[in-house]
């Protein structure tokens, strides 16, 4: 069915499911190591720095910097057909971890710039809640 983005998620490992569920509740979450404080994404069950399984979820404050972005003009899956053209951005949270987010609007009129400050929020799209970056 066109426009149902949940079907693209597929099966998730438990720790990925926790991150996804937090996002569905409107919270952008990342993990932080209890031993040394290292923060990371994407979600995984051990700290990629010290390999400790002791960590906790933390909610991102919402500040981030734009690293790069693309605009999809073709739907690589039928569920995405209703949304092209759409923009996807890579951002670095002010807390450190990086993530993929939706970029508000399709660049063209107001060209974004690498390093630009963005503000993150969540938005409903295709039956799911996604992180959205707005240029400040």
């Amino acid at each position, binding site marked *: 069915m066109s426009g149902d983005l949940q079907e693209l998620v597929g099966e998730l490992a438990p720790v990925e499911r926790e991150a996804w569920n937090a996002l569905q509740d409107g919270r952008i979450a990342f993990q932080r190591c209890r031993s040394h404080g290292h923060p990371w994404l994407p979600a995984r069950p051990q700290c990629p720095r010290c390999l400790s399984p002791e960590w906790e979820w933390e909610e991102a404050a919402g500040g981030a910097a734009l*690293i790069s*972005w693309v605009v*999809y003009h073709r739907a690589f899956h039928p569920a995405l057909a209703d949304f092209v053209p759409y923009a996807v951005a890579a951002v670095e949270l002010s807390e450190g971890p990086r993530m993929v*987010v939706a970029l508000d609007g399709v660049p063209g009129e107001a060209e974004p710039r690498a390093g630009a400050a963005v503000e993150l929020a969540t938005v409903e799209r295709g039956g799911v809640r996604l992180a959205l970056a707005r240029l400040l």
Partner: protein
Amino acid sequence: MTTAPACVLAGVGLTAAGTLEGRSTISLNVEASRLALADARIDKDLVDAVYVKFPTSRLEFMYATKVAEALGVDEPTICGCWDQGGASNISMVSQAAQAIAAGEIEVALVTAADNPRSGTRQAYDKAWGTDAPYGWVGIAGGYAMIARAYLEEFGLASRDLAPFAIAARRHGAANPAAQLRKPLTLERHQEEDWIVEPLRRSDVCLVSDGGGAVVVTSARRARQLGVPAPIGVLGFGHAQKAQETIRRADLTATAARPAGAMAFAAAGLRPRDVDVAQLYDCFSVVPAMTLEDYGFCGKGEAPAFARETGIEVGGGLPINTSGGLLAETGMPGMQMVVEGVRQLRGESTSQVAGAEICLVSGQGGVMTTHATMILGSR
């Protein structure tokens, strides 16, 4: 200058490219291997190692031993798959060279085949986890993300990537075996639709069925067996980047820099010694960034290098002289190894006069894996 190479590419083989309806990947590996062994004039019974590139479009267990069995090589000393995307071919040649140098094996078949055009695309079509609902799917998006960072950092635009597609398409047009033989102009490139902006249709590789293989042995064994036209390997280089593209501290610093430096050091050569290069071009931005990180020009200078030095046959550094992934076949990289050998034998359809040193690059994932090989005809 360099010392005599210990390891040689004794023979190469390439199947037809394009839509090969009904052909299994194993049958394509067998056909490519038969051609490579015939080219080397080495009897199949002498093969004691089979290295096989993982067929990316469909996951299959014990794939390499299935290929070996189909080849009638039932009990090879070494046999296995390498899962590194387009860097696999050169990495496997390197692994074979080390095993040969260690005295473990004498004659290795290194083979790769896939049928994503007429067969399944199972491995590409599955859902991609929590990033997928953003539409962050497919390989092109990852390369576009790097391409955008590259164009932004150096003040370049889509038109600056065009020379890499145009060169591949010119060389493809001259190659009767190429899947795409229609030349490309800058004007036509700039009129094309975006696939994932900033990449246009002709910036993106072909999707092709096909196979390629190479026979690796020692220089000494090649002489004993009367191999007609062995090509020496002068040096290998390797490097990898973080799997998650966006986690890389600098999106425009590629694995080509350390891998190229390693290969040039091993060969005792410098970029200016290279006569012709086969630079993996799944997307036009890749050979541009590879040229820079191999040291042929500075960062952000590849478009100017293409315009001023020239990357087409007749230019200062012809690249991808059989058409590469953009025109010859979308096969992930073995065609670049085969063309490197053909150039140094004087057999290319876009021959570089007097070519003696050829650089070949392979890379996979989203500029994740990288392997470099420098070939020499003397």
